[in-house]
């Protein structure tokens, strides 16, 4: 996306209907909480296999993008598609409703939360096999075998029968990642995955996410404050503020050469800590 020199925020131009379908698309999506316009007629796309980081100040609406994709929140207006399927199609003034299409489209999306949200009354293994067994109707043995593989991949094969309260924050988040991956989503959302972690535990989680970014063709959309990490693994970085895309582009452009004053201001504040 060519950066603009003027001070108005960059908007991605409306989708060209002849372009091949993206994995994720937001088309004129708006969302308000009372007076607060969290998203303003957002047009936003993520291509298949793309790794995108969204940065920006608190209250900018970036988490809302993820939450709408995960159907944890509903748009007031607009069209949201995932993997070609309609997730939300809300006309102005109507109430959004979860349809069969919504449910089908949602299956393509997985999410890792800031607060992990593991099921505390289940063991690590049970946490990971719960959804595959009950939603994908996977055979319990097969689900268990997969879960063991995933937990090994995130480095927790020794903690299969531990319960979340017995694990550290970093360990819990890694289980959460394995749990989300167990559903084989095409899109993985990360909502500030390390913001609730003690500093010394951040590295282990970022390591897992890095591995995912480098060795899979999964589409990844991450909201984070870890700027260096975002720069390292992203194909594209999006600067979000006050409900609009301020600027977006390759990490090197955004971090080394931001065009917009808002971006510059934000990066100055964040990176100078």
């Amino acid at each position, binding site marked *: 996306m060519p950066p603009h020199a003027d001070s108005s925020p960059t908007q991605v131009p409306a989708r060209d209907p002849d372009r091949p379908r993206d994995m994720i698309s937001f088309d004129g999506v708006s969302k308000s*909480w009372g007076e607060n316009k969290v998203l303003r007629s957002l047009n936003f796309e993520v291509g298949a296999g793309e790794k995108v980081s969204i940065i920006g100040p608190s209250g900018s609406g970036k988490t809302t993008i993820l939450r709408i994709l995960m159907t944890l*929140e509903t748009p007031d207006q607009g069209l949201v598609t995932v993997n070609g399927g309609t997730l939300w199609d809300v006309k102005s003034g109507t109430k959004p409703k979860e349809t069969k299409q919504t449910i089908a489209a949602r299956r393509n999306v997985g999410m890792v939360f800031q607060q992990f949200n593991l099921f505390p009354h289940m063991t690590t293994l049970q946490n990971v096999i719960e959804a595959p067994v009950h939603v994908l109707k996977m055979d319990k043995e097969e689900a268990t075998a997969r879960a063991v593989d995933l937990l090994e991949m995130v480095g927790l094969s020794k903690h299969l029968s531990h319960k979340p309260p017995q694990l550290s924050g970093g360990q819990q988040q890694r289980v959460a990642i394995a749990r989300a991956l167990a559903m084989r989503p095409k899109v993985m959302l990360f909502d500030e995955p390390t913001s609730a972690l003690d500093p010394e535990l951040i590295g282990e989680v970022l390591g897992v996410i890095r591995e995912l970014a480098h060795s899979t063709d999964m589409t990844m959309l991450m909201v984070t404050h870890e700027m260096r990490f975002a720069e390292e693994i992203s194909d594209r970085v999006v600067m979000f503020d006050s409900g609009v895309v301020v600027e977006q582009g390759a990490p090197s452009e955004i971090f080394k050469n931001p065009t917009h004053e808002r971006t510059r201001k934000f990066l100055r504040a964040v990176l100078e800590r």
Partner: protein
Amino acid sequence: MSYAVPLLFRGLLVTLLVTVLGTIVAAVTAFTAGLGRLSQHKFLRWPAGIFVEVFRGTSLVVQLFWLFFALPAFGIQLAPLTAAVLALGLNEGAYAAEIVRGTISSRAAGQNEACVALGMARALRLRRVLIPQSIPAMLPPFGNVMVDLLKNTSLVSLVTVSDLTFRAGFVRNAMGHTTAVYLIILVIYFVLSQVISAFSKWMERRFALDRVPRSVTKAARMQAVGSGGGPT
């Protein structure tokens, strides 16, 4: 049916009387037993503890009948109303004693240390600092206590006190409009309990510790700038 109205009305008055008197007995009991349980002296703590456990552990119905039917064996014949108010008050007071004890002791720690640092003796501490602070916290549960007492007053009809429930029974026997009468008094009890709850909530708000006087909030509101919140 119009005969029933004055009868029911008189029954309602008796119900209200028993409720109010019972609440007074309960409050006195609650503070006595509650503070007793907090006492350093065993000779106060143990009787208070026994009283609370016995009155909470036996059924109110049994206590009511015992005061009215069993006490005469010791030569004490209580009037139905007296037995009723005593039984209700002591029973509810035993439960409320726990509220008193709980709220005061939960405020104790930090406040106690401050008082000790200021050189206040224990009794003074209790009287001037802990109890006044605890009263707002006690109000909501006490609202419940009063509603509970109101509902329990219906039991006094069983020991011949002419309350609302007793009158309803009378009307039923004498005139046979069973459905209507009992439904009517059910609604009356409901309205009364809602009124008591609303009153208790009002008291709660009025005496809340973090309540800011109106003049201050107005000034703050005029100065306030800023938009509503929202998620990231």
